[in-house]
């Protein structure tokens, strides 16, 4: 065991790279783009690149919110229904209310999403349900509400106000407002995660929940907040969904939760919490969308895409796991409670004065 570690320059470069896996992801995206541009003529077709970005935008927004939740060592399966519900409700609302401009619309979408997300928080913090079950329940409930509010009909693009309906047809400096919205979300959430105390609390809680509460980080409050944020982003994505696809029915958004989680996982967000970044999740979303596009252009069935996406997830998880095992030093192996089996901290009186161990959570 060395006394103090200042790693050699080369190792430190490798380490820096892997800590900021976003660089690697960007590299991968660039590589894929370059290869596709060269090898696949149809890829270079005009408008294709904007199409990729448009297709990636919604996934990026939801993935970024999901990334925060996963970083806090939770999960949110209900985002798909939140998205769909917001798409219909806020979409109709802005359609009906004549004076509702984009600001009002966005505000409503964020608020609705936040409320739905807060619902998750209540189930998890108050009723103490495990996140996966709680958000499974809300996915069902919010999904059912989607059916109820749509009354079996759907929202038509004609009912949408212009600013929403033109969300992919207009172009601001080469990108559609939809894409700009996504970029703003990624940047804002990324900054919050990296640079605010709130964000750092989330990372700490995900990294070691027991230590976090021991040190006085308000774990309960943060849980509510992180689910509210995730919900809000899903709500925003819903509003934009209405703009992008025009018609919104009761099945809007279905499947989004898994795509978002996939994007986050590929983007390096660890399911054990405490590491990865919203930017990574967004890049993961972009990568997934780009590959999807290439396959579509190559006329490879949508169907092969699923296989590829699925394989990509497994490969990404295995890859990140391998990398972290290589780089991270196992602290004394013998008596560790395994990562991944953490349970909510139970208050208990010790039966005898036994040393209790804190579950170590490595990436």
């Amino acid at each position, binding site marked *: 065991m060395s006394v103090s570690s200042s*790693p050699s320059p080369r190792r430190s470069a490798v380490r820096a790279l892997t800590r900021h896996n976003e660089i690697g992801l960007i590299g991968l995206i660039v590589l894929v783009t370059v290869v596709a541009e060269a090898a696949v003529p149809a890829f270079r077709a005009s408008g294709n690149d904007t199409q990729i970005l448009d297709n990636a935008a919604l996934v990026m927004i939801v993935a970024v919110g999901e990334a925060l939740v996963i970083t806090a060592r939770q999960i949110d399966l209900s985002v798909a229904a939140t998205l769909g519900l917001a798409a219909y409700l806020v979409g109709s609302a802005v359609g009906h209310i004549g004076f509702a401009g984009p600001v009002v619309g966005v505000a409503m979408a964020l608020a609705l999403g936040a409320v739905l997300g807060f619902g998750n928080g209540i189930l998890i913090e108050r009723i103490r349900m495990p996140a996966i079950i709680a958000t499974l329940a809300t996915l069902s409930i919010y999904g059912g509400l989607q059916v109820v509010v749509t009354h079996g009909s759907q929202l038509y693009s004609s009912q949408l106000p212009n600013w929403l309906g033109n969300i992919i047809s207009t172009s601001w400096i080469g990108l559609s407002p939809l894409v700009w919205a996504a970029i703003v979300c990624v940047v804002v959430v990324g900054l919050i995660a990296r640079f605010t105390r709130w964000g750092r609390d989330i990372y700490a809680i995900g990294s070691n929940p027991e230590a976090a509460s021991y040190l006085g980080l308000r774990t309960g409050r943060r849980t509510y907040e992180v689910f509210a944020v995730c919900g809000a982003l899903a709500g925003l994505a819903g509003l934009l969904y209405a703009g992008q696809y025009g018609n919104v029915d009761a099945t809007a958004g279905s499947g989004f939760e898994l795509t978002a989680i996939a994007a986050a996982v590929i983007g390096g967000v660890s399911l054990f919490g405490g590491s990865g970044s919203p930017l990574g999740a967004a890049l993961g979303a972009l990568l997934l969308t780009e590959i999807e596009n290439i396959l579509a252009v190559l006329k490879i069935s949508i169907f092969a895409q699923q296989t590829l996406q699925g394989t990509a997830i497994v490969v990404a998880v295995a890859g990140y796991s391998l990398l972290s095992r290589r780089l991270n030093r196992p602290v004394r192996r013998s008596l560790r409670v395994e990562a991944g089996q953490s349970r909510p901290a139970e208050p208990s009186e010790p039966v005898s004065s*036994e040393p209790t161990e804190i579950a170590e959570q490595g990436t």
Partner: protein
Amino acid sequence: MDAATETGAGAPDAPAAGTTIVELRGITRSFGGVRALRGVDLSLRAGEVLGLLGENGAGKSTLVKILTGVISADGGEILVDGRPTRFGNSRDARELGITATYQEPMVFPTLDVAENIFAGRLPTERGAVRWRDLYAAAKRTLDELGVTLDPHTPVSQLGIADRQLIEIGKSLSSGARVLILDEPTAVLSSREIDRLFGIVRTLRDRGVALMFISHKLDEIRQITDRVVVMRDGAQIAERDSGNVPVSELIRLMVGREISDLYPARPTNPGEVMLEVKGLSRDGYFEDISFTVRAGEIVGFAGLVGAGRTEVAQSIFGIDPIDRGEILLEGLRFRPQSPRHAVKCGVAYLPENRLAHGLVPTMKVPPNMTMSIWPKLVNRLGVFRTREMNRQASELADRVQLQAGRLDQLVSTLSGGNQQKVVLGKWLAASPRLLILDEPTHGIDVGTKSEVLRIVTELARGGVAVLLISSELEEVRAMSTRLFVMRAGRLVGEFDCPVDADTVMEAAAGVSGAIA
């Protein structure tokens, strides 16, 4: 970040050396009938390193928990700066400047050093973290500790020694006035220990009140100013560290003569059951060779962290082996997994019985028979529950577990009864080699002697027993032969009976009775 983060007590308002910061008077504490502390008086003074010495079960860890507000005392009072205080939780204690570091440092592995040191106290301006200030402050803290560590390093890449330093850095940077170090050197190399001691001296000179808990007598003498010896829940004596001979410390720690708490040793060793040759696992232990005969109890003494558990776990197939070989009754044995070891007749009673020895949500019978579940099947593939209950009942008799307990969840049992269940589990497996790791840890005296009696009977019945224990009295009384490990190596082999001092010296690495 508050003003206190201008690294701690080096500031002009450092208390005068010798001022009592925390005082404990008559502290008592029991756990379900077991008296862990029986009226302890202690004071922690600024600019002083107080050593706390005592065997396992003497009550040191309970004392620390009370000092840090993790648990409350049943009786007695705590005075901070002369004022009687109650800690509602650990936060209260921390706010008063009482901090502690433990053998297993509590860190955020996915965050970097700086964020770990200042977790929960990040410097912010209107919600945004002031990163430059953070890294600068972290660097300052590390410099003060004399540590060359890049504050940007992710803690997951650091070994345990560095993680400990981060915890100390946490204390230092939050202006802690009291720092308790609980067995900090158990897993450190000598270079790391030197580094740590340098830091301890630095902190002491700044006026921090330090408490250094350790088994290692040479360290206590090296680094502490005063030493308090605890035994059986009370403090027995207080000495000036510079003047006290090791032999006296040992005598104080170990105390009374071997009482008839312990059964007579088995006397008829049979064939060699276990032979270990040159066993090594890099980073944990090196060149371990010993034998255990059937009907023998071989003791493994040593301080916490000496590597004994690691040896046991390698023999049992939990951990890998880098070099060396193991022979069971003369045949080569390469343990691939605990299941394999069990099939070959090896049993292991782990140190942490609740986490590693029992399934808390199950009742006594399934727990007690877990090692032989595959055998409790009838021809139709049905698990024979009735047979399980019958066997459990028999085993309960053998381990003297009250019949009424059989129907209970093991999580509701006392520590002593839990240990009996685990012991029963291994009795059921009829092993040829039984490895016990701290079997009487945290158990009341009465149950302790029952457990030890059963172990001795097992040995008489022909089982080879390897007893790992940090309780000197116990391991000396029970074993027919005693090995001592220190820092991953075997440093002594004795036939019993053997003097406590002799064993302690080998374990602590202090030679002779130094005046």
